[in-house]
């Protein structure tokens, strides 16, 4: 057991945890931040996706000791008012069914849009391919990503289209 000081959603949080405890359980069980979901615990479903220094990571695969000074962003901290363009697009398209996979989907999509502000369908297939949804919301996820892309970089389509 050791004490780790983590930067989570812009706040510094100290937790005492075994060093191999995945960030997922640190967040959920020690800090009571339950937005990040457990789906497999082995890095194959994407339910636990969050950002470390802006990169998508599977929280179930990151031992707390490896987080270091990297900034953790969870679904709770993606935006202050739940109005990140991805969240807004998700509501607009009524993406969620059961909703369990959606925090992970949204965190993954937010990163995808940073990398590809106007992703093609093939880029969406690739970028979102490891985030599973059993309820069948993929079509709406795709549409919502395109909507969010337009909303966050309205000038973009022309440039992207020029390629």
């Amino acid at each position: 057991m050791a004490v780790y000081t983590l930067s989570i959603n812009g706040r510094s949080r100290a937790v005492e945890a075994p060093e191999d405890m995945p960030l997922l359980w640190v967040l959920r069980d020690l800090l009571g931040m339950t937005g990040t979901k457990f789906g497999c615990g082995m890095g194959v479903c994407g339910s636990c996706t969050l950002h470390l220094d802006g990169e998508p990571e599977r929280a179930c695969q990151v031992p707390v000791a490896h987080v270091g000074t990297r900034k953790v962003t969870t679904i709770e901290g993606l935006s202050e008012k739940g109005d990140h363009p991805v969240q807004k697009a998700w509501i607009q398209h009524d993406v969620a069914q059961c909703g369990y996979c959606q925090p992970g989907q949204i965190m993954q999509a937010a990163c995808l849009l940073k990398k590809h502000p106007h992703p093609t369908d093939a880029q969406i297939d690739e970028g979102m391919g490891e985030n599973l949804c059993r309820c069948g919301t993929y079509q709406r996820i795709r549409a919502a990503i395109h909507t969010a892309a337009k909303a966050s970089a309205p000038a973009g389509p022309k440039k992207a289209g020029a390629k």
Partner: protein
Amino acid sequence: MNTRRDFLQKTGCLALAFHVPMELKSFARSPEAAGSAALEPNAFLRIAKDGTVTVWATRSEMGQGVRTSMAQAVADELGADWSRVQVQQASSAPRFGDLGITGGSQTTKTTFMAFRKVGATAREMLVEAAAARWKVPAKECVALNGQVKHEGSKRGAAFGELVEEAAKLTPPKEPTLRNIKGMGHSRRRLDGPDLVTGKAGFGTDVRLPGMLVASIERCPVFGGKVKSFDAAAALKVPGVKRVFQVTSGVAVLGEHTWAALAGRDALKVEWDEGPAAQASSAGITAQLAKRLETPGKSVRKEGKGAAGLQGAAKRLKAAYDFPFLAHATMEPMVATADVKADRCDIYAPMQAVGLWMPMLMAATGLKAEQIEVHIPLLGGGFGRRAMPDFLMDAVECSKQAGVPVKVQWSREDDMQHDFYRPATHHELEGGLDAKGNLAAWNHRFAGGSIAASLGFPWPPESTEVSGAGDLPYAIPDLEVEWAQSDVPVPLGFWRAVPASFNPFASECFFDELAHAAGKDPLAWRLELLKGEGKRKVGQESVDLGRLRRVLETVRDQSGWGTAKFRKGRGHGVAAHAYLDCDTYVAQVAEVEVKADGAIRVLRVICAVDCGYAVNPENVKAQMEGGILYGLSAALLGEITLEKGRVVQSSFKDYPVARMEHMPKVEVHIIPHADFVPPGGAGEPGLPPLAPAVGNAVFHATGKRLRSLPMTPEKVRQA
């Protein structure tokens, strides 16, 4: 056969049936209602002075949108301002009555009228209060958008302003419902904002003061028992508090999930694996095929039945096979219980609260009114959460530990200790007369029975024959025969139950016969569905016009008969009348078959007639969901057994559809001019998908696939 079944039998829950009509039984006003500052005509609705309308949903939300659609039923009758409507979840507290079962796509069908009545009751009270205040006749007042208005005197009052006076009135016994027809409104999910911000509370998110988290090691072989266990190493793991035996195995309780999981890793258990330890998929496949060498039970017979084949000019025979399937809900099984000497609170994402109360009473030794089951959101259900095993884990652990306990299943637990969709083997034979008419049909199939496996007191075939016994086509001599063949695998309800597999056999074989007869498969379906009104199909009856109309819709929308396809591409059609929930669906699937045999479904054109679509956009979402769940089964999913153990343990070896698999889905909802009672939507989108894909693969390649999943290997070998 297994401990779970014994448990069901011992606890005396067997008299309860799944198919009881589920109505709102209780209209009791909540204890807080009398003299409250809000209008609460019954337990399911509260209108506050600030105008907020709160509806209590009595069915579990697992993604099918019932929390929103139940609130809509109330709000539309009430004339509420939708932006002021919110939803709460009813618990098993007596004032809500029996919560029944969320399953069988029954929620809307069985509760819509009752919830409309809830809304109409409050509307009449508000109108009466306004009329009295304004001294005008009540029938001249209307309730709309959260206001009561009187046109003649140009007066109006918001619901909130009328609440105090309305609350003093006696709720009308038989309020008049509004005249509705056509379709409802597409409303966004009330839970939407919470679902995108991580605030929504699922079963696994439950946290109680002093709670421990448990992980249970179960015997890898179904029905196996603990011989002995050594907890010494587990108890040394930091954070592990207790280790003890429970019905389902050995529980390791920790301060948090990670401690429980790490402790469980260190646990040593010796098992008595029991008689199922020799079971294998190969053995079960052989057993099912052998079973058809002897007669089963004839579940439907028309004309001369199977004997009619003898007179046929041309006969065709084929065998179809299906594997076991796991549900693989995104949220693994989980439940939390707090069992005390005189009270028990359970927080379980479950589908069948009404069904398992007697079992909870037996396990806790408490009376129904001392037990309250709270229903958080379900991270997927698909029938899996109709089973009680995961909540009994929590009840047992909490009782034994004396503190609140959350039992969290791992993904491996979830996949290897499911109640699986039955594996089945089918043999079909069809006969054409000299003119190429479909003269005879014989469908024989063998498999386990879900009802029998669970020890339910229903006929064993009752859970197995939909999609086979209700074949809707006019065939003079027809017989369907089901042969029970028990397997050492727990069976359960999987989205669409037998209609998740039977239609692949019947709708693909129909296609085979169409090709043999030189007929267009879609036109032939329509021809054999000619006629007015309803046709009796076994115990049920099918509305021919409604089934034809969904087929005609996909024909017209898909360019059937005129669409051109490049090499390796093609399309196929299938339809299914989901009679249990009164919904008709047809689909045309367009596929591409790659050189390596991989099937890609490009587009699915889906027509659905679910009567009055309460929330059309949600109906579409449910079709998309059913199609995708069906697609995983059509192309990817298979649970196999070796040495009595489920081989698959995660999404690595039990693949499910991903983003790249999602076809473009176009849903057409059949409009009705009048009011047609609403049917269900959660399951009916699934049954036609696999046969439409199988038929499309044939159209594209000339290869007929008769076993699921349709893997690239099977395509290459076909």
